[in-house]
């Protein structure tokens, strides 16, 4: 495969809590190809954002191990100057909360201008301004000349997210990381922003890592999906395989939690419990075991590995073979109904 843009091998990102390091991203290996949308799905706290920040080298106090190979260079603990050059030019990032991601004291035009200036300091001010206006047009801002001089608080949530996107694509990045780009927006704006990202994907031909917990977004956008749980990838497959034939209990539980119009359910499936915190995470055995207690212990592997069950479809642990959804007891049904 020579169209691989980014090759990640055994990435481990650990944070220090008191005197010990705890891995938030634990032994993640995957490839990002050119011109594809790779979705990373998981609950809050599953390590998705920590993973994205590791690629960009944006963690200030984390221990990062493993390899992130980009154009023949390993980005893990790479030279700070080299990372500075990559960030914002070859790698762009779209943030979740556009209001807090923009500097409240700078007009938005100047903030996009800065992104261009940092990588092309020789371009004249007037030319940069033209480029900013073009970018604003490209992301669908109605009156770019006026918006250029507005402050973030003067814009709506959707407009702000467009500004953040304009900033991320200002230097035609080859890799675009979108960290929950639609989470903070309401539904109609969400679909507009998703359409915009799709459109951009076709024009800038970047590899896109889309981080989300919204499987609806995944179904609409992704080419491939990696499901993350407690810092590990538990299943990875192309979008059709994953939607048609999900295997890992976590993936199946997530998909089962989505309400559909086609089928009338009296109650929604809820995954028991929460993602364990970093310090309380079991480091041996199947990490999902505690949330499917009705599955017998012998179904899990002692040290779960990713198994390729069909071409390009990997599943961690063997418990998927024995997994079933529990029948709800009468008591639980009543509880939900009330």
């Amino acid at each position, binding site marked *: 495969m020579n169209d691989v843009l980014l090759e990640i091998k055994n990435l481990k990102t650990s944070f220090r809590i008191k005197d010990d390091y705890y891995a938030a991203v634990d032994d993640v290996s995957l490839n990002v190809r050119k011109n594809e949308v790779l979705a990373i799905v998981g609950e809050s706290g599953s390590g998705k954002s920590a993973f994205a920040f590791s690629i960009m080298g944006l963690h200030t106090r984390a221990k990062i191990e493993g390899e992130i190979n980009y154009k023949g260079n390993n980005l893990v603990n790479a030279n700070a100057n080299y990372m500075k050059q990559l960030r*914002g030019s070859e790698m*762009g990032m779209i943030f979740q909360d556009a209001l807090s991601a923009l500097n*409240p004291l700078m007009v938005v035009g100047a903030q996009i201008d800065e992104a261009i200036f940092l990588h092309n300091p020789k371009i004249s001010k007037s030319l940069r301004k033209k480029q900013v206006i073009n970018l604003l047009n490209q992301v669908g801002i109605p009156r770019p000349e006026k918006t250029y001089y507005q402050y973030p608080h003067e814009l709506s949530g959707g407009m702000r997210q467009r500004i953040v996107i304009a900033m991320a694509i200002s230097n035609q990045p080859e890799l675009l990381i979108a960290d929950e780009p639609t989470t903070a927006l309401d539904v109609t704006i969400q679909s507009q922003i998703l359409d915009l990202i799709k459109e951009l994907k076709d024009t800038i031909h970047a590899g896109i890592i889309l981080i989300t917990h919204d499987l609806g977004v995944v179904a609409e956008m992704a080419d491939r999906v990696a499901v993350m749980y407690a810092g590990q990838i538990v299943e990875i497959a192309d979008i059709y395989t994953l939607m048609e034939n999900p295997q890992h209990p976590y993936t199946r539980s997530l998909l089962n939690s989505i309400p559909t119009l086609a089928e009338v359910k009296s109650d929604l499936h809820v995954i028991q419990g929460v993602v364990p915190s970093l310090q309380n995470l079991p480091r041996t055995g199947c990490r999902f075991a505690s949330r499917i207690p009705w599955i017998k212990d012998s179904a899990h592997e002692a040290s779960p590995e990713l198994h390729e069950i069909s071409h390009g479809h990997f599943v961690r642990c063997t418990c998927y073979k024995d997994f079933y959804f529990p029948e709800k007891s009468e008591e639980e049904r009543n509880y939900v109904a009330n």
Partner: protein
Amino acid sequence: MWKLIVRRTLITIPQIIVLSLLVFILAQAMPGDALTGLIDPSIDPATIEAMRERLGLNNPWYVQYIDWIKGVMQGDFGQSFRFKMPVSDLIGARMINTLWLSLATLILTYLIAIPLGIISGRFNDTWLDRVITGYTYIGFAAPLFIFALVMLFIFGFQLGWFPTSGSVTPGTTPGTLEYFISKVNHLLLPALSMALITTVSTVQYLRSEIIDTKQKDFIVTARAKGASESRVYNRHVLRNSLLPIAAFFGYEITGLIGGTIFIENIFGYPGMGELFLSSISLRDYSVMTALVLLFGLAAIIGALLSDIILSLVDPRIRIK
């Protein structure tokens, strides 16, 4: 924005009226009047009473207030009982001295606070930060008048680097360079003593603002754009952190008033603060009243400045 500034300025008018009323009522509440202690006791009480009537001291308080405020607006604060000269002449020269002292203190305060706050905030929890926060704790704990005495003792008396009292060497002619240098020399020690203590709150404030700002999402955005660390700090962290410091500026002026009262007395510096304390101990009422009014006015102007500065630097406050 101009609208906001004009509106904010208009608010000071009722503030000033209330201030002048309070000052006047407080002065009235003090026992005795202008004639009680001034007059030879052998004079016939009927004459004194006639004099009271003639001076308007028997008028109702609001009539007296209006008489007084009319005078104040023309710069007439009455006569000093101690110096036998108009209060305005008495305060005039001292006000200039106090203004210079305050200005020097303000400049030194920020010269100390901004670099220390930036270092402490940017490199928080390093030994450098611990040294700086240690200094701020000492500054908070040390009373200004004790600290000033220690400074005076060490640098004025022991080392002899600075003059120990006055505002200028006697005999120098105003307007010459020598006069100016002598002025600055007299200012430096009191201003530095005050600045070293008053600056600690600004250092701490700036430190916590920077620590707060550098964890904000837009700082991550700036890094993700490819900005260098120094650019991140100079362009993004600093401007956002200086905002509340700028807003604090006006209140710094209020704080200075209290400071100058102590400092001028300890350093024998002929300013308003020194005049204020000696007027209290000698019951020089007309001088006291005038000074309280001026101090109050300075506080009101300080608050006004704070709000105007904030509206200039923070786009979120500008009202359309």
